[in-house]
Structures are given as structure tokens and as C-alpha cells.
């Protein structure tokens, strides 16, 4: 903001403008009033993108913690994070395959127990399917010769996945909410 004289001028102009016109001069408004939409907009964008699983009203930090919790469950029961974090480029397929079967079984159990998934289009892949008018663009992606009027007929290439139900257990009140897996120390 500029010097004393500019402030003095703005103050007087605003005083009389409000007194007689119930408004502030446009140039002063542009200079001083912060645009109302910007900050809350950033918050809601972050919230909607990370809270597919939650209602928008919750504060974002809890959404982040739920994401961590999901990883923690997949790690605790399926050791998924250990698997993804490891450098497997040097191991033969047979060794990776054997381990992956176990990880697959266990991670599947985790999904079954805590997150119920359902396909978005529940029909057989590589078979014809109709996409109705007014479909949700985020839920159905059109590829190939995308032209013509809705409804369109196409071939289903991927059923899609949607979360039907989330049954995450409550998490602790105290510290440890960003922990995916605790370090383990064996006492001999």
C-alpha cells in the first residue's frame, strides 16, 4: 500500500462514498478487497480430490489420515507397502510369483473386509454395451471413435471400479496417525 497521502485520500473518499452512495469506489475495491473465492476454493478442491471416500464437510487432515490408514491396513495384513517399496528387478519370476500369491490373498481379504468395491458397468468385458444419455463423465470414459449422439453402443473394455461401502475401523486419538507400519524390534 502506498504512502500516507494515498491512504488519507482513500479513507476520505470511502467515507463520503459510503455515506452518500452506499458503496465504495471501484478502484479502491479492486485494490484493497481480496477476492472471496480463491482460498476456500483451494481448500474444497483438495478436499474433494482426497475425499472420494468421505463427505466434503470433514476437514482435510482427517481425509489424509484415512488414506494413510488404508495403506496401513494393506501393509499390516497384506504387506503391500513392503512389496511396492522393494527393488524386485534382480529377482527371478518364480521367487516373485510365490510371494505375490500370498500378498494377493491377504490384500484381497483386506479389501473385502474394509472397502466394498463394485464394478461401474456390470457386464462382461469385450462384449457390446450401451452408454445411456446423461451418464456420469467421471464414471465412464469413452475411447476410440468418440462421436455421435447418446445413447451410444460400444464394446466394454474395463468394468470400472467404484467403492460401495467403507468400513474403516476407528483410529487412535493420539499420535501415530501417519504411521503405515511400526518399526519392529525383537528382544532376544
Amino acid at each position: 500500500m502506498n504512502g500516507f497521502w494515498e491512504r488519507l485520500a482513500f479513507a476520505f473518499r470511502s467515507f463520503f462514498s459510503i455515506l452518500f452512495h452506499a458503496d465504495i469506489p471501484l478502484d479502491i475495491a479492486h485494490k484493497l478487497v481480496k477476492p472471496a473465492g480463491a482460498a476456500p476454493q483451494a481448500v474444497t478442491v483438495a478436499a474433494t480430490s482426497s475425499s472420494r471416500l468421505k463427505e466434503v464437510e470433514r476437514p482435510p487432515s482427517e481425509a489424509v489420515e484415512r488414506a494413510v490408514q488404508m495403506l496401513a491396513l494393506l501393509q499390516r495384513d497384506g504387506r503391500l507397502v513392503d512389496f511396492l517399496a522393494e527393488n524386485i528387478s534382480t529377482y527371478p519370476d518364480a521367487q516373485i510369483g510365490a510371494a505375490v500369491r500370498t500378498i494377493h490373498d491377504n490384500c484381497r481379504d483386506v479389501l473385502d473386509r474394509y472397502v466394498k468395491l463394485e464394478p461401474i458397468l456390470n457386464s462382461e468385458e469385450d462384449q457390446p454395451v450401451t452408454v445411456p444419455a446423461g451418464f456420469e463423465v467421471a464414471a465412464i470414459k469413452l475411447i476410440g471413435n468418440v462421436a455421435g449422439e447418446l445413447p451410444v453402443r460400444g464394446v466394454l473394455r474395463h468394468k470400472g471400479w467404484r467403492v460401495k461401502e467403507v468400513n474403516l475401523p476407528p483410529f487412535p486419538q493420539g499420535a501415530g496417525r501417519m504411521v503405515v507400519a511400526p518399526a519392529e524390534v525383537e528382544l532376544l
Partner: protein
Amino acid sequence: MAAKYIVGIDLGTTNSALAHCNASATGEESPIKIRSIPQLVNPNEVAELTLLPSFLYIPGEFDFPKGSLALPWEPEPKFVIGELARKRGAESPNRLIASAKSWLSYAGVDRTAPILPWQASEEVPKVSPVEVSSRFLQYLRTVWDSGEAVGKRELALAEQDVLLTVPASFDEEARELTRRAAEQAGYPHVTLLEEPLAAFYAWLESQGDTWRRRIKVGDLVLVCDVGGGTTDLSLIVVSEENGDLSLKRVAVGDHILLGGDNMDLALARVLQQRLEALGNRIDTWQLHGLWHECRIEKEKLFESRKMQKRPITLLGKGTKLIGGTIKTELLREDLDQVLVEGFFPHVTSGELPARQRRVGFQELGLPYAADPAITKHLARFLSEQVRNSPEAAEIRRGPSGLACPTHILFNGGVMKAAVLRDRVVEVLNSWLRKEGFDALGAEHILEAPDLEHAVARGAAYYGKARRGRGVRIRSGASRTYYIGIESAMPAVPGMEAPLKALCVVPFGMEEGTEATIPGREFGLVVGEPAEFRFLSSSVRKQDQVGSLLEDWRTDIEELSPLEVTLKPDGQRGAIVPVRLETRVTELGTLEVWCVSRDGTQRWKLELNIREKTAR
């Protein structure tokens, strides 16, 4: 007080269950239901399971994050019970109490003293075996009372008709300790029921009225119960009374500490050796992993006859998941050699199990069975323990004296495997044929429904049967009990005076009956405690009330003494002559009373259960 529900509780060595039905309705309207039990399965996570693993974990400061053990009715419990206790106990065994029930039957320790976890380090708070059992029962009571019973006194579990199962092989001491555990847990009266009988009741329930077509007068049913930690054998004879079929339990085996856990561990050890021969190092943590995998993969192999092997994968420790992965296989031959041949070998009916080693109790802890061959224990049961039974005439026997069952009922998790059931039937049939009887066919194998919950269901069914809404199996005392009388011989320094055994409770003495011990009086001093030595036998079955035995060294064992103190109402020091009377109550409790000569005064003797030194 009219109870609204009949509740059957199976307090198992590895898992507990609870079943219930309405007390008042008639048979068809009151189906027996298994109650699901909410319990911690992970920190912060409560789930409902139909079984409550009988594990108790004593958390220290560092085991779980604060507040993560909260239960709906208890924000900061002192102990963890159930699935989470089992899981955490596998990681940190120092604070885990498992198989508390088996400790209840082990006289080599003081079962009311805080000794568990066995040989844990000093900073772990200890509890007694009785308290552990009490805590499981308390947990079940709290779960029940927080359900529909909230706020309604008459629906609380303590007000219901509760039946609690015990192994048939539990002697009076172990049963008394079980009763005390129930009392401490807030159950004013429980009826004890033997587990093999409960299994048979579960079968009766599943048959409805058609059970009379399956068995007839003269039949002998062998109940073979092999669970996670124990093997329990019983015989039930079918006879006739007032024109109707009646059932009586005629023989009970010893408490054999041998079960599914031994089998899974044996398999794990075989795989451990196989892996170590290839150069891998398998530590305790990985052995536990092998044990866990064996349990699961063995069931898959048992279920499908076509599979010849199952992969066993141990993921690497730490973050070297794939890098540390160890692979091996569980082969069908492993199951055949280790489980079928190791635990259920073909034996003749005369082969007895290896004698129990008498080594210092302190090192071994529980006295696990020395011989893992369950078929040998079965042979011993059918030959030795049925001998001399008072129902000798009714029990079908072969020329060698071996009891020859006509039917067999399996119970316990181990018996889910058809291969093992078939092997037991095969071995039994080889004995039957040798004794000149026909082999058992498929119709003689009684199908046990829902093996995991059968005992709890059967206990609830027995509750109905007692009220006249079902068939009852008469059982009575499972052992013969004696009072020890010191013979009047001059004292010799350094030698114990010889003890004679006076039979006070004959084997099979029925519930609701009494007996007076004839011809003997004892002088009790008013104001001073009187002690009677108390003995029991699981082998001698024909001794009558009042018979006096002089030479009994091997067949009879001494229990804790019975004690009574006559209250001094002004007569301290006087000697009161009394007779002994015994009763078996409807709840299955054994009572020994001192009755004054004129019959006007009675005092009840109490079992003073203590630790016994090695016999």
C-alpha cells in the same frame, strides 16, 4: 427364580463358544442359537466372531497405543481376551496365557496361586489358572449383559440357567475349581456337563425325533473328541427303561494333553528340517509362521483328495519381502506319515501308550502326553478303563474283554478331516473283527454337525432336556472317590502310616442321590479343623459305598484333603461323633457331609485344594 434363557457355554482349551435358547417355549419354538461375541481383533478394531479364542494377554506399557484397546463397555481394559490376544501373543509370548484350562486339571502346581504366564519374567503381573478361566467367563457375561439385557435385571446372564462344559476326564478338584471360577465371575449357580456328552446331545438335537431309529437297546457309542489341545474319550450305552430308550455314560478316559496343536507343530517341524537341509536358517518367529501355514494348508489338503501338495511360502522378514522369501511344499506324504501314521497308527488293541515320564514338573510345565499315538490311547481306554465297570453286563465286549462300540461320534476340530476319521474307524474295525464282531459301516458313524460349536449347542440342549423337553443321558460320578483312613498301627519314625481307602462315592453314583457310609463313626473336635484325606480312582469301578481297601497303590490317587471345622457354640473342645454322608446334586456337584449321630446337625466338608508334590 424363573430363568428366561438356557445358556450353554463351552469353555474350550483353544476356543470358547456360547449357545442359548428360550427356557419356556416348547421344543420347536426355541431353536438353539450361537451367539456371536464381539472382541478386539486388531488394536482399535472390534469384530463379532462366533468363537472366542481362549487366550489372555497381559499388555505392558509398550504393547499397544493408548486407547486402542477400548471395548464398548470398558475404555481401558487391564487384559486383552480373544483374537487380538492370540495374535499379539504369537509375537510376544512372554505375556500370553494359553491353555489355561489344562492347568486347571494339573495338580502339580497350586492352581489358585498366580503362576501364569508360566515362567514369564518378573515384571509381568501374574494370574492364577482359576482367575484366567474366571476372566473368560466374566467376559462372556459382560458381552451378554451389554446386549438386549441392558437395564433389565431378569435378562442378565447371572439370572439364567447356565450350563458349563468340562472335559469328562476332569476329576472333582478340577470341577470344583471350574465352579469357583464361575462363582468369581459372578455366576451364582452353574451346572457342569461333560463335553463328550454335550457332543452327543448336539447330535441328538440335530436328529430331532429320528434318533431312535439310528440306535437301539444294547448299542454302545464311542465319543472320540480330539480338539486343539486335548483328547477326550467316553462311552455311552443304550438301554431301556419303562419301555423307552435310555442313555447312560459308562466310561470316561484320562485327560490326555494331545491334540491338533501338537499335530500342526509336528508338521511345521518337518518342514523346518526340510528347509534347513537346503541351507536356510529358520528361527522361532519363522517356525511360528510355518506352524500357521501348516494349519491352513493341511486343511486344504485334507478337504481335496486330488491335490498332492500345497505351496508354503514364508515372506521375508523386514522390508526384504521378496528377497527373503522362503518357499517349500507341504506334501500329501507329509500328512500321511506325520499325522496319519504318527498320531493314528495301526495298532493292535493290546498296545498301550508309553508310560508318562516322571520328570521334574518345574521344567516341563504341563504334562503333555508322552505318546502321541491317539489310537494307542483309544486302545487303552477300551481295554483297561472299561474293565470292572459296574455296567459290565450291558457293555458289548469281545472275548479279550475289550469294549466293542457299535457306533462312533466324532467331535473336535481335528476330526473335521475325513482322512483321520476314516483311519480311526479302520483301526477300530480291525479290533472289532479280531474280537468277532462286524465292522462299523457308514451308518454307524454318527454325523456331528457344526464341530466347532457342537459342545455349546449340546450344553444348551441338555438344559432343555433337564426340563423334560429332550432326551437325557444319565451319567453320575465319573470316578470312584474314597476317604483315607489311617490304620491303627504303632508309628514308625520315617515311615508314613499305611492308609486304607474307604469308598464314599461309587463310580456312576447318579445325580440327585445320596449315600450314607455305614458302620463308621469319626470323632470331630469342636472348634478345631478336621482333615480327611481324599482319594479317587478312574480305574476301579466296582467298589461299593463302605468297602475298605488296604492295598491300592497304583489304582488310586490322592487328591487334596477335605476339611471341616465345627463351630464352637459354647462347647469348644468337646468331641462330636459323626457319620459321613455323600450326595451328588442335580448340578453335578459332589458333596461330602458329616452328620451327627442323632442326625440333627450337619456340616459340609470342603475341598482344600493345594499343590501336590511329585507322586
